[in-house]
């Protein structure tokens, strides 16, 4: 118990784990106590969630904003495929 109270390494580890899966009841209690006393880790927790939120909002959905392939590349690729198809036929 004393360990987690002062250990920010362990607290931040639990914050990340808790974001993605369930942590044990004991770990939940330890983390809660640590966060009540540690404003730096509280800030870390906020920033970590904010980063996750930005990843979801701007990186995951970004595909729609990426430009399409240029036509030159596409024609070239289509030709390569045709050549390969012809090879397979023989």
């Amino acid at each position, binding site marked *: 118990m004393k360990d987690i109270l002062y250990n*920010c*390494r362990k607290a*931040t580890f639990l914050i990340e784990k808790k974001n*993605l899966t369930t942590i044990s009841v004991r770990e939940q209690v330890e983390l809660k106590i640590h966060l009540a006393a540690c404003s*730096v880790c509280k800030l870390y927790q906020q*920033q970590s969630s904010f980063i996750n939120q930005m990843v979801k*909002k701007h*990186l995951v959905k970004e595909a729609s904003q990426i430009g399409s392939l240029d036509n030159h590349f596409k024609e070239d690729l*289509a030709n390569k*495929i045709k050549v390969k198809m012809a090879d397979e036929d023989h």
Partner: protein
Amino acid sequence: MSVNQNQVVKETENIILAPAEWVNNYADFLYKYAVVRVNDDEIAKDLLQETFFSALKGISNFKGESSERTWLVAILKHKIIDHYRNASRMRSKSITNESTEDEFFEKGNGHWNRENRPTEFSSVSNELQEKEFALILKKCIKKMPALWSAVFTLKHIDEEETDYILQEMKISSANFWVIIHRSKLNLRACLQKNWL
């Protein structure tokens, strides 16, 4: 009788592969799918090309259990994972400090060290600032050791199941959580340094 015939036609329509139309029908979609995940235009184009070539070779393996597009996406996904694996193998040779235990915390007691203690980010209050923030975030992801950015991307961008990631990247569960922790510490610090 005619109903039966229609069904057969429909079924064969589903399983027909038309490689000559692949570029037209799927190139943009697959390219975008890859770019988001590998964070690099040239690599994404290479993976796209390899995907089509592998698909051509594997045409006889196509069982028609999924649509043409789903089948191509599955092949591309394998290519992306291969790319992650190769990159982390290559780069981990040159990065010896991947496991430097503590650049963030004091050795004994696990307190934040002075240098890396989180402080408030500059504000991100509108859509434009968010986009700039996201841009720096992307650069920070790219700067991480390859295995870390691969695991981070698989979990946070692809939203893959943890078990799948362990299996594909051949890492232990303990190692996975260490990477998740370390990569977030790293990203946060990188953002604090570069988001001004």
